[in-house]
């Protein structure tokens, strides 16, 4: 628990978009991909992924289709739509600006004031 950070609210959607942007994935695959690209630093409750996926599909950011997985099982694959790609770009920029701002705020030293 201590080695894994909890997700800030709203960041799950961004992570899902990022994971899917690298290629179509099914739900479990998305979890694995997020674990892989975050170097297992982020904790995501497995079930909590699905409401987020349904929400993103409904917003038109993702599209879903049934296919066969690498394990030879039927699975629902998600990929980014054009809108989703645009949203990912915007959110990434926004996140970076926020993170930079917070990082520099936190890095402030007494003598700099």
């Amino acid at each position: 628990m201590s080695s894994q950070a909890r997700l800030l609210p709203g960041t799950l959607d961004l992570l899902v978009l990022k994971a899917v942007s690298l290629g179509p994935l099914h739900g479990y695959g998305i979890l694995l991909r997020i674990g892989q690209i975050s170097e297992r630093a982020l904790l995501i409750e497995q079930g909590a992924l699905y409401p987020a996926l349904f929400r993103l599909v409904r917003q038109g950011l993702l599209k879903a289709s049934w296919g066969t997985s690498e394990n030879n099982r039927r699975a629902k694959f998600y990929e980014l739509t054009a809108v989703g790609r645009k949203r990912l770009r915007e959110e990434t920029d926004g996140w970076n600006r926020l993170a930079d701002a917070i990082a520099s705020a936190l890095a402030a030293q007494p003598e700099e004031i």
Partner: protein
Amino acid sequence: MKILFWFRSVAAGLFHRSRIEDEMEEELRSHIQHRADDLVRSGLDRATAERRARVEFGGQLRFKEACREALGGTFIESLIQDVRFSLRVLRKSFGFTVVAILTLALAIGANAVVFGVLNGLILRPLHVPQAGSLYGTEYGAGSGWQSYPNYRDLRDRNRSFDDLAAWKFVFVGVDTGNEPSRATAFATTGNYFDVLKLQPILGRFYHSQDEHGPNSAPYVVLSYGYWYSRFQADHDVVGRVVRLNKRPFTIIGVAPPGFYGTLLFVHPDFFMPIVNQEQVEGASLLNSRGSNGGIFEVFGHLKAGITPAQAAVDLNAVGVYLERTYPKEFAHKSSSLSPTGLNSFGRPVRAFVAGLMLLASLILLAACANLGSLFAAQAADRSREVALRLALGSSRQRILRQLLTEAVLISLVGGAAGLQSSVVLLQWLSAWNPFPGTPIHLPVTPDAKVYVVALALALVSAFLFGIVPVRQVLRTDPYQVVKAGPTGRIGRRATVRDALLVLQIAICAVLVTASMVAVRGLVRSLYGKFGFERNTMLASANLAMAGYSGDNVPDMQRRMIEAMETLPGVERAGLVNNYPPLAYGSGNTANVFKDETRDLSQSNVAAMPYRYDISPGYFDAAGTSLLAGRDFTWHDDEHAPPVAVVNRTFAGKLLGSVTDAVGRHYRMQDGTRIEVVGVVEDGKYLSVTEDQQPAMFLPFLRSPSSQAYLVVRSRRDPQELAAAIRRRLRELDAGLPVNTETWDSLLDVVLFPSRVATVSLGVLGMMGAMLSLTGIFGMAAYSVSRRRRELGIRIALGAQRREVLQAALGRAFKLLAVGSAAGLILGILASRVLVLNCSTTFMY
């Protein structure tokens, strides 16, 4: 766009629910399988791996619910869930549900009925094209009366109306070849149908071009209903000749269905040109500018862009011009406009219906207060259930939504029941003919608007009483409630309900007081002094209907009176021209001047007494007591000096006192000097609620009229007497249609408005009383059941019966006292307003 999306997903959620559920199921299963595959690869056996994968995944149901919510179809689904659950809860507390539904059914039903009346009489326009711009003119104190010459000047001199039409009532004997019968018709100006922009469904209408002076257009246009009932919808009716009061008229057309004339609650049998009015009424009104009996209403379409206020200014300007030009015959009274359909009845009807609407909404408010407190009580009873649900992770919003669903369900069922009964009642009212033999109807058939209003009222009331327990639920602390049970804080928590109960009792007390005042008023007016005996028998006959004219009329009338006096058991008989006092709200007034007045212009008028032309013996027959002087004799005819008998008020107003009056003189509009020969007691003339009015009685021989009422005093059984009267009159002239009725039954018509008012107020008052009873009962029963444990302990500790009662019911009684006191005070204040309102309302 978003809305569209939402709709689509809602629709998809509804129609493909099972498919989506299946897919969701499969997707989650696939996830767990994939995870298990990984776990197997790390060395676990398949069964352990699958169990472990499921545990890691977490609560599937919870996530599915979240997924459904994310999909958007959830609103409808949770609504269905809420409805199902509410139904179960409501079935469990059956008594509460029934009481709540009945209460609402009554309250919403009452509102729907009142709204139906409002809708039928005020909101719904006449069934003619562009009814919105159709306005009728009113003169002075809300009356449409006008003379025909004045109408013509108004029509030609105004600049605000496209065209002005006018009409008056005529009551005629119709002879179609077989049995003669009476009918009510509109005598209209030639342009009547053109102003209304109507087309006949059969034959043609008459037009202005058909009018070529008096009695030039002997045509009849049948109303659809009369064509149907009297002529069996015969298509060959056009061209047929019928006799109206013995004069031949040709049927030229039939008006369309749905057109019942231009007065909402009187449906004429047919229409005829007003230029032929003399043929059916015996005397021409076309040239007498001073007679306001010529026209009942003048109306027309406003020109485009003209407001009713501008038109009224225009009409008043014409009125001022007319007064200047004809000072002896016309006194201008300020005019106003009102939508055609109710004419001079509009004001009182509107005031009355508005008052009813107010009372009905008070009833609904009281019902909501009642249900609100019941609901809050019920919610408090269920605080344990609410706490459990909160503890298990349900959101407060969801619980509130469910409570509100219960409220909406109850109010919808109650509203439907109320609407159902109100529709039945309204349909009965529209079919009802309050005075058999008259064309009076209440056009209150319910339409879509009534349904919509009832639905809206149901929803509004659901929210009103549904939000009462909200605060209670929001404050619920699951931990406390589950641990300790629903105890303590009774006193504090009851305050909202207390306020509601006080409010409700106050409202109900207002209603009850108001209805009591109304009933007392009616009773008082029923047993007041009318100035005549109410069980006197009346027989109306219009000699014009049998072809009499000129000198034949008074001769025949004298023979009729003498014939009545020879009937066994008859003490005295007399006659009054046109209508006796208090009949059908009709009364003629005339201007009189003091004897010394020389300039007989409108500004010098000393009084406007009611005028009755009567035969010798009328006062005896009617039971009107003579205070001084003498009755008329058969010698008081056109050859004798003009004389009059006046009532006490007239004598007091013009002639000093009763004893001084006899022998003194006054003047009529035409300058005639009249000697007062007698004084009679005061009476009621136009309405039973009027203040004492002056009246004068003139000898009928000086101004004969073919329409008259015979007044017959007898101790015989009314039905026998009526039959004997009809038999004797048939012996005199078999072709004369005669109606017999007691004076009492004519009073029914005059008292109808106040009866209607009293009945409606009484019903509303009773509902108010019932509501407050159930409210108090519910509150007391609830507080006792809540404190049963406490009361038990008190008894166990030795409390006396009286103390226990006081503990249990003291509060309820205190609230009752506060509420009733407030309600009584308000009620007395309100009834003052009501009485004022009613007395002005029922003048007409």
